[in-house]
């Protein structure tokens, strides 16, 4: 990669801090889904593992965000998740919500990679994005979806997913 500028580094740290906040919101959403009482033991195990992954992702984003790291869940995004969790009334509904979160997180990482220029941030986002995509695929399997839904077109993550937008879910 060509060398990044100091301006790039500041902008990238802001993006990393935003992604960190979304990862923490997802981890908390998973905790609440696990506590909903609708999940089987097998699905609970998957949800707990994914929650741990998102905590790990948040930690890596926080590291590259440096001083801009907030270390807290995105308030607006978490509030939205909590409203959606309140509407969950079955395991299927919980898994559909989780799959939606993962697809949106993957799209968010893709959008972030379209902007960042500094090597640590590029590497952090690049190493996380495929895992979130795999989460979405596993949740599709849990839901019993077909191959087209589980492995969508190879050039896009999920055409219907909308990434987390900092303008909608401000960092602070």
């Amino acid at each position, binding site marked *: *990669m060509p060398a990044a500028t100091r301006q790039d580094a500041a902008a990238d740290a*802001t993006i990393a801090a*935003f992604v960190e906040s979304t990862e923490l919101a997802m981890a908390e959403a998973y905790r609440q889904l696990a506590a909903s009482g609708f999940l089987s033991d097998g699905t609970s195990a998957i949800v707990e593992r994914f929650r741990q992954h998102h905590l790990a992702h948040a930690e890596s984003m926080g590291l590259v965000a440096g001083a801009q790291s907030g270390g807290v869940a995105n308030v607006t995004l978490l509030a939205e998740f909590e409203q959606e969790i309140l509407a969950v009334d079955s395991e299927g509904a919980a898994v559909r919500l989780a799959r939606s979160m993962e697809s949106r997180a*993957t799209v968010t990482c893709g959008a972030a990679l379209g902007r960042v220029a500094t090597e640590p941030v590029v590497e952090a986002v690049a190493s996380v994005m495929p895992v979130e995509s*795999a989460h979405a695929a596993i949740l599709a399997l849990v839901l019993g979806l077909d191959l087209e839904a589980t*492995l969508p077109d*190879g050039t896009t993550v999920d055409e219907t997913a909308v990434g987390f937008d900092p303008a909608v879910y401000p960092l602070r």
Partner: protein
Amino acid sequence: MTGMIDASRGSRRAFLRLGGGAAVAAFIASACSGDGSDETASTLAPPESRPISDWPLDVAYAQTAVSLELAAARINERIVASGFLGDGSIALLGRINANHAAHRAVMEPIVTDAAVEVVDAPNAVVLAVTEPALSLIAAEGDALGVAHRLETMLSQAYVFFTSEFSTAELRSRSASIAAADNRHQAVLATRLAIDQFAVGDAYVPVENPAPSAVIYG
């Protein structure tokens, strides 16, 4: 593509790979030789249009990626031809190969736009290192295991390319493919585990997945 790659404009890490003795993975050698306010408010908006790349390593990575896609398709065809797969697994590999064709179509324009040698042969190194496993397939689990290791390697390779490409646009392309390949490996891993969902690790490593035996330099 022939001749030396000028790494002087690249990142320190890429420079060390080229100049430090370890050099670029043989994946690349194979491809190139023909062998085979609110400050965050707008931060995720698309960047302005710019040339795809004028950086030589980008083209080498794209050539390598095309050769990997061709190798993946060839290997998956061999796995299906082994005769050990059930209908569900055959359909799965068919879907995966359709994705690989799409991935190739995403990476090829980087090569053609650079007016360098078009890659039309599978990556010879990947074919060579996979051949022993292919020859030992004696059950569906063996076959899916080869496919799973292949997709795991591909996902990591694209994460590596993502970390090395010089423009955000190329990094986005590469990352999208890394994500798709990691979906492949997750589904294959789940199928291998039979009724257990393979959750995997929290990260895909950014290092080049090529084993040391296929590194030249």
